[in-house]
């Protein structure tokens, strides 16, 4: 039953362009919305560049840690004992054939290895936190938008409260009182779960609001009326009629939420409430580097660039995806 309904929806959405396309209507016949979007995306060079970078980054996070050395292995012999900075390399970074991006301070750990391993945690946390936020946001957004009335009021006000929360401060306070072991988890595993929870649980209202708005407009559409008049119940309409028409905004906003969450995770690590040291994280590296940025600028540059490139790649790809899926917004 999904397919026909989707067609109905997509025709409704694709209509303006179909009218514009006019005579060429025959040439694109038989293409689904997904195919159209993919064609548009392919034409967008910037978005494709971002997309390729995203794929490479994910590959790096998954395969990379097996290719680089131990990120926690100190190399005290590479550090000048008097000036406490790397002895050799471009601008005293410790760069060499063994350490392509130099070594950190004061332990002399391989920078490349720490950045690659840092990517693993950065991406893992931001992906899972985004998934959590999307699930919560979609469920509550659809319920609020479809049912309206007091349910909508309750959920919308709850979202307002969440959005007004001084999140960073709250997260810092929460880490302080968090036990050393809980839910059968301990140490870093527990900390990762905690970060996913905090980031995901507090960012769902952003996507929730958008889904609610979309649902509000969708529920007035003819195909929903038709389903309702044929006696369909609420769960059927929610999951079979509305959700399939929401996948485009969900995909777009999830893609745009990931970079926000990467920065959020980096901020928490920078403030010392992220991953437990010595496990590398980009924010944690920036925190260590701020003590010595004048004598070892490379230490701040590389993790900073890692965050910059990752966030930029996700944003470019997300923007392109939005343009492709929802052409009315920009063209």
């Amino acid at each position, binding site marked *: 039953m999904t397919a026909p309904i989707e067609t109905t929806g997509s025709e409704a959405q694709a209509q303006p362009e179909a009218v514009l396309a006019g005579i060429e209507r025959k040439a694109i016949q038989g293409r689904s919305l997904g195919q159209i979007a993919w064609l548009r995306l392919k034409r967008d060079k910037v978005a494709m560049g971002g997309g390729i970078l995203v794929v490479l980054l994910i590959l790096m996070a998954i395969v990379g840690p097996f290719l680089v050395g131990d990120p926690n292995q100190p190399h005290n012999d590479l550090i000048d*004992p008097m*000036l*406490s900075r790397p002895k050799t390399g471009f601008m005293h970074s410790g760069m060499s054939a063994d350490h392509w991006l130099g070594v950190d301070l*004061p*332990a002399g750990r391989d920078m490349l290895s720490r950045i690659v391993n840092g990517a693993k945690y950065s991406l893992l946390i931001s992906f899972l936190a985004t998934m959590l936020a999307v699930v919560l946001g979609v469920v509550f957004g659809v319920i609020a938008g479809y049912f309206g009335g007091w349910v909508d009021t309750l959920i919308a006000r709850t979202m307002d409260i969440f959005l007004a929360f001084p999140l960073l401060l709250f997260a810092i306070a929460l880490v*302080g009182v968090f036990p050393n072991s809980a839910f059968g988890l301990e140490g870093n595993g527990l900390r990762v779960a905690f970060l996913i929870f905090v980031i995901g649980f507090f960012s769902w209202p952003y996507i929730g609001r958008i889904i609610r708005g979309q649902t509000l407009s969708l529920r007035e559409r003819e195909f929903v009326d038709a389903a309702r008049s044929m006696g369909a119940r609420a769960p059927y309409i929610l999951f079979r009629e509305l959700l399939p028409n929401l996948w485009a905004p969900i995909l777009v906003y999830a893609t745009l939420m990931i970079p926000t969450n990467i920065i959020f995770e980096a901020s928490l690590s920078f403030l010392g409430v992220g991953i437990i*040291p*010595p496990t590398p994280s980009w924010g944690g590296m920036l*925190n260590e580097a701020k003590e010595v940025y004048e004598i070892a600028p490379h230490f701040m540059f590389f993790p900073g660039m890692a965050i910059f490139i990752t966030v930029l790649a996700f944003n470019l790809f997300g923007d392109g995806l939005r343009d492709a899926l929802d052409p009315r917004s920009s063209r």
Partner: protein
Amino acid sequence: MRRTTRRGIAVLATGVSAALVLAACGGGDDEGGGGSATFNQGNTSIVNPSDSKGGTLRMLRTGDFDSTDPGNMYYATAWNFSRLYARSLLTFKSVGGQGNLEITPDLASGLGQPSADLKTWTYKLRPGVKFSDGTPVTSKDVKYAIARSNYSPEVMEKGPVYFRQYLSNPNKYKGPYKDPNLDNFKGVETPDDQTVVFKLSQPFAEFDYLATIPQTAPVPQAADAGAKGGVNYAKGVVSTGPYKLDSYEPGKSIKLSKNPNWDASDTNRKQLLDNIEVQLGVAPDEVDNRQMDGSAEIDVAGNGVNAAARSKLLSDPELKKNADNPNSGFLWYTAISRQVEPFTNKDCRIAVQYAVDKTGYQNAYGGTTGGDIASTVMPPSLKAHQKFDLYPNNNGKGDPVKAKEHLAKCGKPNGFTTNISYRTERPKEKAAAESIKASLEKVGIKVNIKNYPEDGYTGGVVGDPKFVQKNQLGLMIYGWAADFPSGFGFLQQITDPGALKGTGSSNISHIDLPDIAKKFQDVVQLKDEAERNKVYQEIDKAVMEDASIIPMLYAKNLYYRNPKMTNVFINYGYSGMIDYANLGLAK
């Protein structure tokens, strides 16, 4: 009592010459500039000796003093600074090098005269000393100063309370703010205006060290009353030193000017400057840069320069010759808990002693100018220090073979898992913890790193035996400096079983050996300093044989010695920082 205060003492380990004695008046070289200065010159001698007068000395500080009230301060920098306007009974000698560890009379005319049982100490005040308002100083002012600073914890909460600990107090005197009648305070007697007698409840051979604490500087009871009294006395301290306190705005500034009623026969200080201005709340890097660019003269915090300035100072020979890198009297160490499995077994502790890489620890604290690799509890800065190394491990690089031998002996040939704690606010301790983790994992000991806030670290974390056991903190990163520069001042709090109390003890290794407890009870009854030092050495060895403290570094600070300043020397009586009481400016 507080632990990691910036108190401490150090004598230069590598000192070339004996102390150069400062010629009290005249004959100085009036040239400023520091053209012939050399690196570490201030460690052993007075640089730019001069009697050149005039000028305003500009001091900077990142934070603020704990207080300007001599009765309510604990940090070494505050104790050093207070000498500009407050004279204690005794003080440390104003000479260059190791000689300034010697206690010398200040407000008193001589050292303390102990009774045979070491329970009564008598000091005679120097005649003719006046407050800045012209009234003569009497023994009652000293008695009042002791009473307010030690018996009023509800008002004077920042300073140490050694006098309360050692003086007898038969009628439970509650301090002058609750009971202004000083006759009820029996711990100090004033038979006449020039005599102060301290009555102790137990023999204490090192009482003269306590008489150097600024808490013995006289305070007129009338000036410490009403709205201007108590904590507010910090803004209206009545001076006995060469300068008087004109204003103190917490977090902003301190201004001092010449005290016309200063007793010029004071050989411990000089009155060369017209004014002293301290700017508080300056950004750390700005403090370093402004000392070097000439818009200020000195960082009054006394912790040395930061990483960027350190690198600049050390790589430029023209700057380096105007730098000093003295011992600060601190020991950076890692305590091993004797309560936590498997460290209840001595061989497991010894295994860690062999396995740790102290060079990684040294890099964490700023490299060779941040500290020298340590092997004893007492730093070389103490007269009592004796060099020995029970666990030599490749010059501090770690000896995995020896470590594994001892792991096998303690029944854990494949290692074990433990936790290490550090203070969240201290990035150096974090790097140190990471370094320990890396070196112990080489021998199969897995280490989890845990961080706790600095505030309450001694009180509720490492100093609380229950917390340590519950959280299985086998290893604890810590640092220690003595409140007064003797073996007793350094060792007692961190190694004496008698210092173990419910919580908040600095004996965080939980050393409870009766033999060591006995030595501490006996040593304070020995009149002879050399004999006492022998006992301190025995205690140091006993602790190291027990292997419950891993000495990592004898800490050092790097100071920029501004060539414009005259009479600059490192005072080991105050954590090895530049002496403030004798500074002047070159013309």
